[in-house]
């Protein structure tokens, strides 16, 4: 909400149109609107969340999905563990590769008590919360 002043409100010119169900589903005449209507939702507009993978296939730690882990006091250990897991092959993982990195991360989490434990699941910090003025 832009700052509301105490002055009298002057409304702009307003028009209202009504659409019936049939009119709404009738063919779109405008080619630009038709193009948008046929697009997948994710194609319509880019997200400000850059996604979890960089073009070279490595992990994007700027992804909102890992934001609060990366920024936590154990963020560095989290990066080490995830990078190791990403590059390790399945058989290497079975042989115990990345165990040290994961233990370092877990040890940091227990030491700092940095993540909430009162919730019944992990919060998605980056989901769009309802906003208000």
């Amino acid at each position: 909400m832009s700052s509301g002043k105490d002055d009298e409100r002057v409304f702009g010119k307003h028009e209202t149109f009504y659409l019936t169900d049939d009119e709404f589903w009738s063919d779109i005449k405008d080619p630009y609107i038709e193009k948008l209507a046929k697009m997948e939702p994710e194609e319509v507009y880019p997200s400000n969340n850059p996604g979890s993978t960089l073009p070279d296939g490595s992990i994007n730690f700027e992804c909102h999905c890992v934001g609060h882990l990366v920024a936590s006091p154990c963020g560095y250990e989290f990066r080490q563990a995830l990078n190791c897991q990403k590059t390790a092959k399945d058989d290497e993982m079975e042989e115990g590769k990345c165990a040290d990195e994961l233990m370092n991360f877990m040890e940091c989490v227990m030491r700092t008590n940095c993540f909430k434990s009162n919730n019944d699941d992990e919060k998605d910090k980056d989901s769009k919360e309802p906003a208000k003025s």
Partner: protein
Amino acid sequence: MLFFPEPLPPFVPQPQPHPTDILGRPKIPRISEDHKHQPSKDDFVAYAGGAAMVILTVAAVVTYSNIFNPKKHDDHHKAASHKEHHAPEPAAPPPAKSSHSEEKPCCDEAKCNEKKEEEKPCCDAEKCKEEKKECKEDCKKSDCKKEEGKSEEKQHHDNEKPSTSGSGSGATEDEPKSSSSEGKAHSEKIPDHVPYLMIGGGTASYYAAIAVRGKEAEAKVLIIGDEPSVPYNRPPLSKELWWYADPKSRDTLEYINVSGKRRDIFLESDGWFVPTGEISKASHGGVSLLKNHRVKRIDTKSKKVHLDDGRTIRYDKLLIATGGRPRKLKELQNADGLVRKKIVYLRDVPDYQKLEDICNESDTKRITEIGDGLLGTELAYSIKRKYPKLDVHQVIKGSGNLPNILPKELSELAKFELESNGVKIHSNAKIQGAESGKDGRAILKVSGEDLESDAIVVAIGIEPNVKLAKDAGLKIDPENGGILADSELQAAEDVYVAGDVASYEDSRLGRRRAEHWNHAEITGRLAGANMTGTKTKFWYQGMFFTKLASKLHVSAVGQTDSKLDTVAVCSKESEKQGGAKKCVVFYKEKDGKLVGVLMLNMFGPAIDVARRLIDDKVKVTSPTELAKLFPLYEAETPEKEDQKKEEK
């Protein structure tokens, strides 16, 4: 009243033991009685080994963590239990600190010198001298009262939850209404220097810190906030904590969200923040939070901030995200003390708790809300929804709600919907003042009518906290009152802004300032990234969502100012079937180009469609065609088609 159904936690049936398996064969007993399968010596050795491992693991956990330490609980949990032992003090405002400031100066020079050396040993004689001088100056200015300082410090240690004693009626930008740190001993160590410093402990600073750490793995960030808790989401204070509360929500600040999951308002736990005394030495950095402190002065030349207790912190990059404070209603400024106790300006947790306490009192009958904007209207609905027996009144100055956003016709529809939900609205009303009644209630005088009220909730907008920036020599936007910044949210060399205070250049919509949660998140992230050297211009429009009545969900993006010319396209059938009115409203510039979109009772990914249309500078020449991109009607399903055929 029609509400969204509140989902219950799912019922999961437990499997019952059965003597036969799925194919009807008798099940093999789980513990064999055959002596071949009895444990041998080797098994007992293995048991002993297993037990030893369990003991070692527990010992390691005890050694390396504070998991069994009873003091480890998060502040808000501790505070919740603390609250139970103390009688609530909902209405007692803290003594006005500033009024005593010049009467009882008590800082002495020797103590100042001593403290300065204790906290921050100086290696440079000149610098030390300069800092001592500043400390003395700050001491002179501060209102440190020994006794009060001691008790405040104790309170700070005992109860780090948002204070419940804030009156909400006396705070100004310079006078924090919650506990101030002025005059108390330094209770926590702080770094002398930090690469990333953020002023303001809200959403914008939190997301800026996230962005900085996303860019730089080992970055060190310090957030300074004047509230006693970790950063939290403000929207639930007028939404979820009223809609999805349980009996303990007032203290736990938890609620069950629409998916049936328990949430609290806090963005992180206390442990997520590196203690302020450790951030300098943290080998892999982190985000630190200095609570209960205000920055009194910014020196952009020497890149230093001065705290309210006289200490200073140097920075490399600075973020100013000081938010806003509720605008005061001048008609109530001279009201007597009793009336003032009944006034709530909802902005923070103590305000919410004060309002909850009033609503919960057995003799409370009427809550009067002043203000026609988003927060005021949302609160009127929320209070009525949670306390249907209360008489909830709303006083508005025009003919409808949200007149700054909605076109007149829809603004009046909003009023109608609220009234249908039981809120009594006084439109075209003029507030003449307030006085205390015989039974301790406040009497609000509205257009010649006396409204006896147990609480007067005032929500007439936000005043951005820009004094600090102004005093530092930064420019203030004369139009929107924010701190003037460029499209990268930079206000001066190494100084950035985000959230409510930011007046920034939007390449599509011009100079803007906005006060929404999503906007604080977006500008916070952008400012944080740009502080690390990324030079990204503002591009992603923030949206807002609210529910103002059972049939009134509003979501919008872009410039949604009712002064602009508007076109609404609405569905015809929805109303006929008793459903909520569905409309999409297009806001146009003078040349007819689309600058904002508002949706009434519509959901889904259409907000991104609106962002695209605004970016593409679409002309609103054929609004009924454009409206086909918004979910005015549900998609055709085979069942729906069959139903239609039958009708024909």
